C-alpha cells in the first residue's frame, strides 16, 4: 500500500497548467483528458445514489451539476489560482451571477468598481436590481470611497484585476484588508490577468471569477466561465445567514458548518448551479483544457506584443490616451510592478483622432486585426466600445468606465508583432485620408 504514497513537491506553474486536476484515466490509460459526453451516470446501488445526492460521497449524478471532464478544468483553474476549488459555468457572466446569487439575498447591498466590462455593468445595474439588490459604484482607485460605501447590509466588494477597457489596475491588497475589516469578501474578476500574471487570492481576495472564453481558453472557440474560492473566508461571521444557516433548498444542510473550507463551493454547485442550470459543456471544458496547457507561453507572447503595440501607439500622432498600464507614464505603473510583474495583460484602449467617426474609420482601415466583440484570443482583436460593447451605457457611465467616443479597444494577439503595427498604420492612414477629405470638401 505504501507504494501509493506520493512525495510532496512544489510543482511549478508550467507543470501544473499541464497536469493539475487530471491523472491518466484509470479505466483506459488515456493520456489526454477524455470527453465524458454524458448527461448522467449509472449508480452502483440505491445506497450509493443516496450518498451522492446527500453529498455524503463525492459522486457523479447529473451533468448539470458535475461532469468528469468539466471537473478537470475546474480543479486545474483552482490549482493555478491557489483556491480550495472551483465551479465552472456556461459563460463568464453566468459564473459571476452564480457567485453573487450564492451569497446575496433581496435587500442586500454590493459595492463595485465603476470601471468594469459593460456586460458586468448591465448585469449589476439591471439583473441585480431586479432581484432587489442595492448597488453602489465607486472609483476603484479611491479606497475611501469603498470604505464610505459600506452599509450594514453590504455583502461584498467587486472589482476587476485589470479594468475593461480603461486598464485601471485594482489595488487588491488594501482593498481585501478593508473588506475583511467589515467581514466582507472581496470578489475579483481576474479574466484579463489570468493566474499566470496575477493570483488575487495570494493578495487577499476571497473569490476569483473568470470568463474562460478569453485567455484561459485562448483560441476563441468556446463560451465558459469559472468561479474559484479561497476556502478561507469565514462565512459564519454573522453576515452570511444565506451561506451559514440551515438551507431550506438542501434539507436543512448548514453548508459552511458542515463542509468548512468547502462550504461555499458546495453550495455554489449543489444549489446555485443546480438551480440556475448554466452548466459548462464537457466539450467546451475539453477545449479550455487544451488552451490552459499553453497559458504561460501564450501570456508571455501576448504581453510582449502588447508592450510593443502600446509603445507604437504612444508615439503615434493620431493616437492618444493609451491605457496600457505597464507604460512608464501610466498612473498604474506602481500597481503593475506590485501585482503584475510579468506583464499587464494584452487588452487596452486608445483614443483615435477624429472622435466617433475617427474610431470607426480606423476599424474600417485595418485588415489583419479582427473586428469583433471578444478579447483574449490568440488572434488580435479590435472594437469600438461606444458603438458596441458599451452601447447601452449613458454618457456618464461611459466616462466612468473610461470610454470616450473615439476609444478603440485592442486585444493584442500572438501574431508577428511587426504585422500588427503595420496593420494599425493602415487604420491611421484611413483616418488621415478621411480627415483630409472632410477638410477638402469644407
Amino acid at each position, binding site marked *: 500500500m*505504501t507504494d501509493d504514497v506520493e512525495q510532496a513537491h512544489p510543482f511549478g506553474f508550467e507543470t501544473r497548467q499541464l497536469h*493539475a486536476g487530471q*491523472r491518466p484515466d484509470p479505466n483506459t490509460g488515456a493520456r489526454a483528458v477524455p470527453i465524458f459526453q454524458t448527461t448522467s451516470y449509472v449508480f452502483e446501488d440505491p445506497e450509493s445514489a443516496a450518498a451522492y445526492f446527500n453529498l*455524503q460521497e463525492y459522486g457523479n449524478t447529473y451533468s448539470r451539476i458535475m461532469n468528469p471532464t468539466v*471537473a478537470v478544468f475546474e480543479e486545474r483553474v483552482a490549482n493555478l489560482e491557489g483556491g480550495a476549488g472551483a465551479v465552472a459555468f456556461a459563460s463568464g457572466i453566468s459564473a459571476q451571477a452564480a457567485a453573487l446569487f450564492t451569497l446575496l439575498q433581496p435587500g442586500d447591498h454590493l459595492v463595485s468598481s465603476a470601471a468594469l466590462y459593460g456586460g458586468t455593468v448591465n448585469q449589476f445595474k439591471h439583473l441585480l436590481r431586479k432581484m432587489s439588490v442595492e448597488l453602489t459604484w465607486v472609483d476603484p482607485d479611491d479606497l475611501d470611497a469603498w470604505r464610505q460605501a459600506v452599509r450594514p447590509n453590504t455583502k461584498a466588494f467587486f472589482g476587476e484585476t485589470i479594468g475593461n477597457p480603461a486598464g485601471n489596475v485594482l489595488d487588491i491588497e488594501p482593498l481585501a484588508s478593508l473588506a475583511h475589516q467589515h467581514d466582507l469578501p472581496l470578489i475579483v474578476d481576474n479574466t484579463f490577468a489570468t493566474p499566470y500574471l496575477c493570483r488575487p487570492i495570494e493578495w487577499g481576495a476571497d473569490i476569483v471569477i473568470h470568463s474562460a472564453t478569453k485567455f484561459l481558453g485562448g483560441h476563441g472557440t468556446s463560451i465558459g466561465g469559472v468561479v474559484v474560492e479561497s476556502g478561507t473566508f469565514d462565512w459564519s461571521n454573522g453576515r452570511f445567514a444565506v451561506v451559514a444557516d440551515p438551507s431550506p433548498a438542501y434539507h436543512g*444542510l448548514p453548508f459552511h458548518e458542515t463542509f*468548512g473550507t468547502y462550504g461555499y463551493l458546495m453550495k455554489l454547485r449543489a444549489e446555485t448551479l443546480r438551480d440556475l442550470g448554466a452548466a459548462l459543456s464537457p466539450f467546451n471544458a475539453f477545449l479550455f483544457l487544451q488552451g490552459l496547457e499553453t497559458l504561460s507561453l501564450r501570456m508571455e507572447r501576448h504581453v510582449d506584443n502588447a508592450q510593443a503595440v502600446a509603445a507604437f501607439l504612444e508615439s503615434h500622432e493620431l493616437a492618444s490616451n493609451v491605457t496600457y498600464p505597464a507604460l512608464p507614464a501610466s498612473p498604474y505603473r506602481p500597481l503593475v510592478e506590485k501585482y503584475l510583474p510579468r506583464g499587464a495583460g494584452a487588452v487596452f484602449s486608445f483614443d483615435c483622432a477624429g472622435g466617433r467617426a475617427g474610431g470607426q474609420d480606423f476599424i474600417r482601415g485595418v485588415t489583419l486585426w479582427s473586428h469583433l466583440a471578444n478579447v483574449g484570443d490568440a488572434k488580435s482583436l479590435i472594437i469600438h466600445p461606444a458603438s458596441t460593447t458599451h452601447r447601452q451605457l449613458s454618457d456618464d457611465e461611459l466616462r466612468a468606465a473610461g470610454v470616450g467616443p473615439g476609444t478603440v479597444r485592442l486585444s493584442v494577439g500572438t501574431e508577428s508583432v511587426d504585422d500588427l503595427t503595420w496593420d494599425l498604420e493602415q487604420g491611421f492612414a484611413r483616418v488621415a485620408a478621411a480627415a483630409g477629405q472632410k477638410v477638402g470638401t469644407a
Partner: protein
Amino acid sequence: MTDLARYQDPLTIQRVLHTANTIAIVGLSNNELRASYFVGYYLRRHGYHVIPVNPRQTEILGQTCYPSLLDVPEPIDIVDVFRAPDALPGIARDAVAIGARVLWCQYGVINDEGARIAEDGSLTVVMDRCLKVEHARYVGRMHWLGFNTQRITSVRAGLQ
C-alpha cells in the same frame, strides 16, 4: 502559535490512511447534517471500521457507541477528534492509555498540550485536517467535484 505544518505532512497523512483499519470518532454526532456524521458515514463506506465515542448516545451509524475511549473493547488505529480544543489533552491521555497509533484532530481542534501528550506516548499526530477530505484527496474522488487536491501525477491508478 502551533507549528501546524509539523502535523500536516502529506507523506505521514497518506501512510496513516493506507495502514489504518479501525477509527474511533470522539464526538461523533447522530445528527446526519453534522460534519462528524458526514465523516463517519464516509469512512464506513470506504471500508474502515468506525467506532463512535459519545457519552450521550448508545448507537450511531448502526455501531455501538461508547462513553469514552477507555470503554472501547478492541484495538484502535486512529482516534479522530471532533471536540473543542480544550478537550484534547484528556482525549490524548486516553488515546495513549489504549495504545492507539494516531491522534487525528479535525479542523480547528488545535491544542499544543494534547499534541505533546500524544507524541510523548509515541502516537503520530495530525492536526487541523479533515480525515474525510484527506482520504478523498489521496484515495477517493475529491477531484470529481472540482476541488483542488494539489496532486500532480502521471501514474495510472486502478479502477475507482
